[in-house]
C-alpha cells in the first residue's frame, strides 16, 4: 500500500467511540488484563473489542480471536503484545481502517532497537495511521471516561492534562494527583515519540476545552524551537503550560570556546526559552502540582496588589519573605489598608499587610477580614493564612472560606494555607476537594500565587508584542568575510575579520586596526589617539589576558613599544605553536559599565542571544540571561532588566544611568545576526562598555567562531 495521508486530528485518540485492545489478557496482573479492566471499569461508554487468540469473554466483553474478526471503523487500537508481533498487528489494524494506535509494548528504540521502531512507523504511515508510543502506559481521557492505562483505576476528574515522558513516573503521578484531589482532564505518556510527540499533543490540548492546565514531565525535547513557537502561538490565554524538565545538571555536550557558549548549559537555555514562551518551569513535582492546582481553581489576578490575611504573626512574616522570593507584591498603601480593615481587626491586631487578626481572634473575625479583602476591587489577590488555635474551629474556618468563594463565584484570586495538625490537614484536603487552592505550607501558597502572576505578566507582555522588524544588516558582506575563514579552514575569525562583521551588522566597536611592526603600532596609536590598548591577534589564543597578550591604557610611544614586545614574548612563551597574525591597536575605552552580549547555538532551540554582566568574571558571576533569537528591541530591553546587576545599569549608589537603548539595539542586532547567518556558531562581545544615557555602548573585544560542520564540509 502506498503511503497514505497522515491523520492530523488527535480527537479519535482522546475521544474514541470504540477501542480495540490487541493482547487483552485473562491473566490477572498482566498489562493486557489491567488495561482492559481499567477501560471497562472507568465508565467508558463506547464499544470495546478485546482481542486474544483464545477468544471467550472478559469483564463482560466478547473477546475476538483475531484482528481480522473486528468490524471496520473502530477509532482506537491499543497494542500490548510482544515487540516482535507489533508491526504485523499495526498492519492488520490499518487494514481495518483504524487511524490511531497506542503501542504500549516496550523493547524498541529505548533499548537500541530503533530499526524495528522505524519499521512500525513505516507500516503505520502506509495506512495513514498515527502511533502513540511505543513504550507508553496508555492514555486517560476524562471527556469519554476512558482510562486506557495500566496504572491506577481511579483517576480524579478535573482540568489538568498531564503529559509524561516517563512511563513509571506518569503512572505514579496518577495516584498522587488522586490523593491530592487534583483533577485531571487527560493523561498521556509519549514514550519513544516515534510519531505523536509533544507538538501534536500541544495541538490537541490547546483546543481541548476540558484542559485548563497542560502539565508536562519532560526529559528531552527534540525540536525545542518549534515547540516553544507552537506554545507561544497556539496556547490561548486561559490555558497554562507547566513543565517539569528533568536533567538540570546536564551540560551542553559540545566543546565551546566562547564565554557565551560555556554559559549556555542546556538547562539554562531551556529555562530561558520556556520563559520566553510563557511556559512555567517547576523545579519539583510538588511545585508543578501546586501551581497546577492554582491555575485550575483560581483566576489570574486582576491587579498586582496582594493582601495577606493571617491569624498568626510568625506565619505572616514568613509569607512576606515568600512573597519577595516569588515576585509577589504585597499592597503597601497603609491608609487604604487601615480604612479597609480597621473595622474587622481586633484592637491588638495589625492592619499593616499582612493583616494580622492575631491568634486570639476567632473564626468570625477571620471570615470578616477575608470578606473585606474579597470585596475590595483594589485588591488583586488574597492570601489566607490560618494557624490552628484553641479559640477557633478549623472546620468552621474552612467552611467560611468555601462560602466566601461560592459568593464570588471563584472570580477572586485567592490561595490559602492551614498550618497545624491532622484537622488542619483535613481542612486543606476538604478545600481542595471543593476546588479551592489550599496548601499546607505558606511558601507553597505564595509560590503558586507567584506562578499566577508570572503568567499574568507574560500575557500582558504578549499583548504588547510587536512584529519584530529586521534590522539593516549586510548579510552578504558578513558571509563574504566568513567565507575567507572557511576557505582557510579556520574556526575562529581574526580580529580584523570579526571587526568587519560587526561593521556589517552596524554594531559599534572601539576603533582599532591590526599591525605587524612596532612602527605601525606606534603610527596606529598616534592616529587613534592615546591611550590605546594592544592585543595579540591569533586564532590560537582566544583568551588574550590569560596569555599575557593584552596591554591596557598605553599612554605614549614608549609604552606602546614595550607592550608590543611584551605581548609577542608572552604569547610565544605561553603558546609556542600559536600562529600570531599581528597585534591589534585599539582605542582604550574608559568609564562605562562592562557588559557582555553573545550569540550561541543550542541543539534544540537553535540560535540564542545572551546578555549579562561582562568582563573577566563573567563565568564566575554567571549573571546572564538568554533568549531564543531573534528578539525585538523591546524584548532585548526586558533581557537587560532581568540580570541581577540591573540596578548598577540604572544608576545604583549615585552612579549615572547607562545607555540601555544602545545595549538593547546591540542585543537585537546580535539576535538577527545569529538567526540569519547560519555559519556562525558563537559570538562574544566582551566586554561591551555601556556609557551614560545617550552616549551609546561599544564593544571592546569580539570573538567569532564558525560552526565545525561548515568547516569540515
Amino acid at each position, binding site marked *: 500500500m502506498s503511503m497514505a495521508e497522515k491523520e492530523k486530528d488527535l480527537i479519535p485518540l482522546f475521544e474514541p467511540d470504540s477501542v480495540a485492545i490487541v493482547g487483552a489478557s485473562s491473566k490477572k496482573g498482566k498489562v493486557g488484563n489491567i488495561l482492559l479492566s481499567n477501560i471497562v471499569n472507568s465508565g467508558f461508554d463506547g464499544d470495546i473489542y478485546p482481542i486474544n487468540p483464545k477468544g471467550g469473554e472478559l469483564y463482560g466483553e466478547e473477546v475476538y480471536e483475531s484482528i481480522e474478526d473486528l468490524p471496520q471503523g473502530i477509532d482506537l487500537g491499543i497494542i500490548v503484545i510482544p515487540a516482535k508481533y507489533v508491526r504485523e498487528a499495526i498492519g492488520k489494524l490499518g487494514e481495518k481502517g483504524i487511524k490511531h494506535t497506542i503501542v504500549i509494548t516496550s523493547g524498541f528504540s529505548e533499548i537500541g532497537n530503533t530499526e524495528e521502531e522505524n519499521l512500525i512507523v513505516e507500516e503505520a504511515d502506509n495506512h495513514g495511521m498515527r502511533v502513540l508510543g511505543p513504550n507508553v502506559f496508555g492514555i486517560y481521557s476524562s471527556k469519554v471516561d476512558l482510562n486506557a492505562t495500566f496504572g491506577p483505576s481511579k483517576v480524579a476528574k478535573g482540568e489538568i492534562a498531564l503529559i509524561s515522558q516517563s512511563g513509571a513516573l506518569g503512572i505514579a503521578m496518577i495516584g498522587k494527583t488522586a490523593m491530592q484531589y487534583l483533577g485531571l482532564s487527560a493523561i498521556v505518556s509519549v514514550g519513544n515519540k516515534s510519531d505523536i510527540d509533544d507538538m501534536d499533543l500541544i495541538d490537541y490540548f490547546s483546543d481541548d476545552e476540558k484542559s485548563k492546565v497542560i502539565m508536562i514531565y519532560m526529559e528531552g525535547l527534540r525540536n525545542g524551537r518549534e515547540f516553544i513557537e507552537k506554545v507561544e502561538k497556539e496556547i490561548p490565554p486561559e490555558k497554562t503550560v507547566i513543565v517539569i524538565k528533568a536533567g538540570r545538571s546536564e551540560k551542553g555536550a559540545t566543546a565551546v570556546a566562547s564565554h557565551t557558549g560555556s554559559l549556555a548549559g542546556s538547562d539554562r537555555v531551556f529555562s530561558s526559552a520556556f520563559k520566553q514562551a510563557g511556559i512555567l518551569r517547576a523545579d519539583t513535582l510538588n511545585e508543578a502540582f501546586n501551581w497546577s492546582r492554582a491555575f485550575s481553581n483560581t483566576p489570574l489576578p486582576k491587579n498586582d496588589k496582594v493582601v495577606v490575611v493571617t491569624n498568626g504573626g510568625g506565619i505572616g512574616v514568613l509569607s512576606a519573605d515568600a512573597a519577595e522570593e516569588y515576585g509577589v507584591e504585597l499592597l503597601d498603601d497603609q491608609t487604604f489598608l487601615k480604612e479597609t480593615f480597621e473595622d474587622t481587626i481586633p484592637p491588638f491586631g495589625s492592619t499593616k499587610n499582612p493583616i494580622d487578626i492575631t491568634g486570639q481572634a476567632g473564626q468570625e473575625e477571620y471570615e470578616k477580614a477575608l470578606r473585606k479583602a474579597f470585596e475590595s476591587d483594589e485588591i488583586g489577590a488574597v492570601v489566607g493564612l490560618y494557624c490552628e488555635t484553641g479559640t477557633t474551629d478549623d472546620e468552621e474556618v474552612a467552611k467560611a472560606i468555601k462560602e466566601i468563594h461560592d459568593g464570588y463565584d471563584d472570580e477572586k484570586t485567592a490561595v490559602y494555607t492551614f498550618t497545624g495538625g491532622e484537622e488542619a490537614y483535613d481542612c486543606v484536603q476538604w478545600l481542595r476537594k471543593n476546588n479551592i487552592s489550599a496548601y499546607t505550607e505558606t511558601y507553597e501558597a505564595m509560590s503558586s500565587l507567584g506562578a499566577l502572576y508570572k503568567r499574568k505578566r507574560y500575557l500582558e507582555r504578549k499583548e504588547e508584542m510587536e512584529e519584530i522588524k529586521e534590522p539593516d544588516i549586510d548579510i552578504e558582506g558578513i558571509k563574504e568575510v566568513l567565507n575567507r575563514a572557511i576557505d582557510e579552514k579556520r574556526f575562529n575569525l581574526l580580529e580584523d575579520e570579526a571587526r568587519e562583521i560587526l561593521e556589517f551588522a552596524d554594531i559599534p566597536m572601539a576603533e582599532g586596526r591590526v599591525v605587524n611592526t*612596532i612602527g605601525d603600532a606606534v603610527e596606529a596609536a598616534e592616529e587613534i589617539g592615546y591611550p590605546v590598548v594592544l592585543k595579540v591577534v591569533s586564532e590560537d589564543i582566544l583568551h588574550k589576558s590569560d596569555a*599575557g597578550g593584552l596591554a591596557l591604557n598605553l*599612554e605614549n610611544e614608549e609604552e606602546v613599544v614595550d607592550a608590543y614586545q*611584551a605581548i609577542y*614574548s608572552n604569547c610565544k612563551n605561553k603558546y609556542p605553536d600559536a600562529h600570531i597574525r599581528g597585534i591589534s591597536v585599539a582605542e582604550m575605552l574608559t568609564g562605562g559599565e562592562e557588559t557582555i552580549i553573545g550569540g550561541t547555538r543550542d541543539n534544540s532551540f537553535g540560535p540564542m542571544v545572551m546578555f549579562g554582566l561582562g568582563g573577566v568574571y563573567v563565568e564566575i558571576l554567571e549573571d546572564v540571561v538568554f533568549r531564543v533569537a531573534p528578539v525585538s528591541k523591546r524584548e532585548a530591553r526586558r533581557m537587560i532588566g532581568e540580570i541581577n546587576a540591573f540596578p548598577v545599569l540604572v544608576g545604583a549608589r549615585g552612579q549615572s544611568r547607562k545607555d540601555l537603548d544602545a545595549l538593547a539595539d546591540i542585543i537585537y542586532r546580535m539576535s538577527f545576526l545569529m538567526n540569519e547567518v547560519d555559519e556562525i556558531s558563537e559570538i562574544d562581545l566582551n566586554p561591551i562598555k555601556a556609557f551614560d544615557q545617550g552616549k551609546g555602548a561599544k564593544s571592546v573585544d569580539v570573538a567569532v567562531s564558525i560552526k565545525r560542520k561548515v568547516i569540515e564540509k
Partner: protein
Amino acid sequence: MKNLIIASTRPDAGKTTVGLAIAMLNKDTFNYLKPFGDRPIYKKKRLIDYDAKLFKNILDLDEDYEKFCIGFDHSKIKYAYDEETIEEKIKDRIGEMRKTKDSVIIETGEEWSVGSSINLDPVSLYRYTDSEIIIVATGKRTSMIDDLHTISKYFQAQDIPIKGVVLNKVESVEDIQNFAVDEIESLGMDVIGIIPEIKDLSLTRVSFINDMLFGKIVAGESGLDNLVENVFVGAMSAEEIVRNPHYQKRRKLIVTGGDRSDVVLASLDEETSGVILTNDIIPPSNIISRADRAGIPLISVPLDTFEAARRIERMDRITTIEDDFKIKRIKEDITPNIDIHFD
C-alpha cells in the same frame, strides 16, 4: 678601566652568574648593561629584564629598570635605530653609566651570534665601547673545546682579543684542568675560571614557575617561596604515585590534572613544594583548604599535563633577586674561582 663584555658559546652557559660573580669582586666598581634583553618581565606598562633587576639590586645601581636594556625584540631595535644611531645609543648609555662607576659589565645575547643583525653582538659592542671580552663556555669537554676553536677563529679574524674564558658547570674540574686548559690557552685565551656544576643554582622557587607559566594561585600562597628541585608528573593512580621512587624525592613539584583530586590530596605532604593543576580545572574546596593549611601552593594553568611538564623542564632557571641562597652560593663558591685582573 675598560668595560667588560660577557658573551657565551651557547645559551644557558651562565653569563649572568659569571657576570654577577665578577661584579661581586668589587661592588662599587661596576655598572650593568644588557643591550639586548632576553628575560623580560612586563610590569607597570614597562618592559624590564630579570637580570637587570638582579644587578640593579645587588650592585645598588641608581638607574631606572628600563635603562639597563635597549630593546627585547629585533623589530623594536630595527624600528628605533639604524647602525649609526644604535652605536650612539650604546655609547651614550655607557657614558652615563660610567659617570658613577669605573666600568660597565655588558651582557650580550643568549649566545655569541645573537644580535648580529641589529649590531648588538659582542663584536659590534666591542667596537662601540672600550671593552675587554670574556667568554663563558659550557658543555661536554670536547664540544666546549670545539666551540672555543670556532670563536677563536672568528674573533681573530676580526682582530679582537679575548681577555679570558670561564668554563662553567663542568662535570669534573680535574678532567678540565688536565685535558682542556692547555689546548684552550694555546688558542690565545686565558682560562680565568673553572667552575663545577652547583646544583643549588638550578633550584627555583614556586613563584617563579608560576610567573613563567602565567598560572593562577588557587591556594597555599604562603608557600610560594618553596624551592623546587624535582618535577613529578602525577599521571597514574594516587596509590601508584606514592609508591613511585621518584615521588619520594624532596622539594618536588607535582604536575597533575586539576580534576585529579586523589593525586592532589596524596601530594599534600611536607616534601611537596607545590602542585601545578593542569587544564584550568580547580579542585574541590576541601582540597583547597588543606593546601592552604599545609602552605603548599596549588597553581592552575590552562595547559595540559604534558605541555606544562615540558615547559617546566625546559624553563630557564635563572637567578632572581629573591633567590638569596643562590646569590650566596655565587658569592661564596664562584667568585673565588674567577681569577681576573683589571688594568
